[in-house]
């Protein structure tokens, strides 16, 4: 196996910022005031609310005493993805939502303080971790996104050799490619990945399992295999006209925008189908790229939107329009999209969670030049079946220790997120990476 260049050596593309970041970093004064406002709760609720259980009171206390290196260590020890989580975590729902100040005052700005502490080590080139004593065991990690990076980091601390197989050019998955740059900078995502690589992780980029390397090869060459390959593309809508130019997969769209690649002429009116957080990213991205009107179309109501409340608010402020209770039935155009035909929908009044039904005769046409579908992601069923691991509805089946049904194979991250279960957040993926690393370490230790 030829060793590829470390990812950090790859040239950073010149990427457009698409306007001002949503959150500016706190000033030094703001940080001091905010850090000193923290109560330093005992067994703090914020720590409990964080999926990775960062000792928030401790890291904020360290900021207050000027021990920024120690602060960043506390954060990154608990969460190798601490830099991106500081920017993309729904903190209102997690740590800040649990802050004891929420009741009578403003919660501590935990995410912003975390960003400040981690930026300190990032900007000053401080290394916080060293690999463990070599164990002589080798672990393959399939997928270099948040879950894979988190697992790789901890496995290196345990002393195991780690090789990440990454289908794309760069590591850190959706952090690098799928989150709009005004929320998470490209270079932050890559720095975060580089910290893991610097611990001596071998990276085989642009390497697809099942295409470039077979799963059986991995399973023979390594003592353990972790599947952390995430999910696939946005599925098709299943309506006529989807192959016209101007119809986009939201993740492709965001990726191209983030990398500064051409998206052609978006026209005056962009339609985004779906109401999750990726839909919000696609909507706001299209708006910032210059589309005059950008409208979200959703087959359910406002209350059923899966995007976070603060994301929805942000989209409103960016000037996005919203149309609820309508579904696309046909994309119209000659070569390129020119219109979409929608039909009104309604939720049947009967009890239980109901799928919307179309209202006969309620069709209407919207003139649009770009259609972006953001209705979730497909499951990588082929990869899992080739690996010989069981799935349920395309979701890899794992036990509490994140072991798959195949001996020596583990799974973590989006590929094990079942619908209606925990949310597919970066911070959850980070925690699963830690769990899977411990599980693999215990297995390798016992197998000695």
């Amino acid at each position, binding site marked *: 196996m030829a060793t590829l260049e470390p990812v950090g050596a790859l040239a950073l593309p010149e990427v457009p910022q698409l306007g001002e970041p949503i959150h500016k970093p706190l000033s030094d004064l703001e940080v001091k005031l905010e850090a000193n406002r923290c109560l330093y*709760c*005992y*067994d*703090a609720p914020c720590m409990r609310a964080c999926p990775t259980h960062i000792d928030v009171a401790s890291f904020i206390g360290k900021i*207050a005493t000027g021990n920024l290196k120690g602060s960043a260590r506390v954060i990154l020890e608990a969460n190798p993805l601490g830099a991106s989580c500081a920017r993309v975590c729904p903190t209102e729902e997690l740590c800040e939502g649990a802050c004891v100040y929420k009741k009578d005052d403003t919660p501590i700005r935990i995410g912003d303080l975390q960003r400040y502490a981690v930026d300190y080590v990032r900007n000053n080139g401080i290394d916080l971790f060293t690999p463990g004593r070599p164990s002589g065991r080798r672990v393959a990690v399939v997928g270099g996104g948040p879950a894979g990076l988190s697992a790789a980091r901890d496995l290196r601390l345990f002393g195991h050799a780690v090789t990440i197989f990454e289908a794309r050019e760069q590591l850190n998955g959706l952090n690098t490619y799928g989150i709009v740059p005004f929320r998470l900078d490209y270079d932050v995502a890559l720095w975060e990945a580089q910290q893991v690589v610097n611990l001596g992780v071998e990276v085989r980029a642009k390497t697809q399992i099942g295409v470039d390397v077979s799963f059986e090869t991995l399973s023979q060459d390594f003592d353990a295999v972790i599947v952390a390959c995430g999910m696939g593309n946005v599925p098709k809508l299943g309506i006529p006209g989807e192959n016209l130019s101007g119809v986009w997969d939201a993740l492709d769209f965001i990726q191209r925008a983030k990398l500064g690649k051409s998206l052609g002429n978006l026209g005056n009116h962009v339609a985004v189908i779906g109401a999750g957080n990726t839909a919000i990213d696609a909507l706001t991205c299209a708006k910032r790229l210059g589309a005059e009107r950008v409208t979200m179309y959703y087959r359910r109501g406002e209350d059923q939107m899966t995007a976070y409340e603060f994301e929805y608010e942000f989209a409103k402020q960016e000037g996005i329009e919203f149309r609820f209770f309508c579904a696309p039935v046909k994309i119209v155009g000659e070569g390129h999209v020119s219109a979409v035909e929608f039909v009104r929908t309604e939720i049947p009044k009967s009890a239980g969670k109901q799928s919307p039904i179309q209202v006969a005769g309620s069709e209407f046409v919207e003139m649009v030049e770009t259609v972006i579908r953001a209705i979730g992601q497909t499951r990588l069923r082929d990869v899992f079946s080739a690996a010989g691991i069981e799935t349920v509805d395309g979701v890899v089946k794992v036990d509490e220790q994140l072991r798959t049904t195949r001996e020596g194979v583990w799974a973590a991250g989006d590929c094990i997120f079942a619908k209606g279960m925990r949310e597919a957040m970066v911070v959850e993926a980070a925690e699963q990476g830690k769990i899977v690393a411990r599980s693999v370490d215990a297995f390798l230790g016992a197998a000695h």
Partner: protein
Amino acid sequence: MADLRNDLAGIKSPNPFWLASAPPTNSGYQVMRAFEAGWGGVVWKTLGDPIVNVTSRFAGLNWKQNPLIGLNNIELITDRPLDENLKEIRECKKAFPDRAIVGSLMEVPVREKWHELVKAVQNAGVDGFELNFGCPHGMSERGMGSAVGQQPDLIEMVTSYAVEATELPVIVKLTPNITDIRHCARAAARGGAAAVSMINTINSLIGVDLETWNPIPHVDGKSSHGGYCGPAVKPIALNMVNECARDAEVPIPISGIGGISNWQDAVEFLLLGATNVQVCTAVMHHGFRIVEDMTDGLNNYLDSRGIETASELIGAAQNRITTWENLNLNYKIVAEIDQATCIHCSKCYIACEDAAHQCIDRNVVDGTAMLVVDADHCVGCNLCMMVCPVEDCITMAEIETGLPPQTWKQRTAALASTT
């Protein structure tokens, strides 16, 4: 509107708020501004042989993001010629005849020199004198300031030098850098002082710069101990004022000094025995304008309690301070946590668990820590209430013990009589 007029040993002022002898009273310009803002009186920056100062001179103690909870200084007395100061005193007195101007004096312990200085300053029209026996840095090395204030016999002697040269009231300003301030106050009274003022600043070092290892403040890399003042010294000052107020051998009024920043602090000093108060650090922090709320707040406080004159507060609570042996051993209070306002931070729990008597039960229910006092074992120490960030969430409730009051003194006496 309550009557705020004040009379300290015959020195009259429209309110009890004076500026202490310090940087804010260094010049006529500043004193004019202070009077315009509403200060009742000033004690002029200490007069004497003009000195040469160093830079830098001050350093502040900050707590978290709160600056100047304490202030340390190594500035000396006035660095301006006596004549210039006296001319400005005259102008200020003329412009504000209703305000008190007290001349602070410092001189070596030589009778003639004191007579000369007292007479010169008296001619400028001051309402009284304050003898600076408290300044703990610099001047003390030259046999003045606290070098006098630390020796009761010197206090008595030098006080008499000043007193015999004037008919005006003489206040003696005392240093806290002693073991028992009452001995110093008694000596001042014996020397003929009309009043004592306390406390001057406390010997202190603010700290060391962790980068350069220079002391803070430093003068070309070196420092000497300075005088500490500001909110952090208030408890020390209150105790000293009260000790003197309750002492039969200190039958003279007290001007309270030490960390007074607002009307509430002033009320506490008055209640525990001060006749008026002097302020410095709070003005150095915020400017003369703070006196507006001091008078307004005191007025409203007195009105709300139906008290007609501020002087009724003087010493009104001073005898609530006694010796430990006179405290009731059978008085019992326990903590109560109001579950409705508790924010579940668990600060009370960890404080009691690690530093008190392990009397708070903590149960996490649905991710929320529920905190309940074990009243049977609570010793009523107050610690949980003190660390609670929510006002009135933890209160101390009196428990009826059914026992008659009994002090340590009574208890030991009773035990002695049974054996």
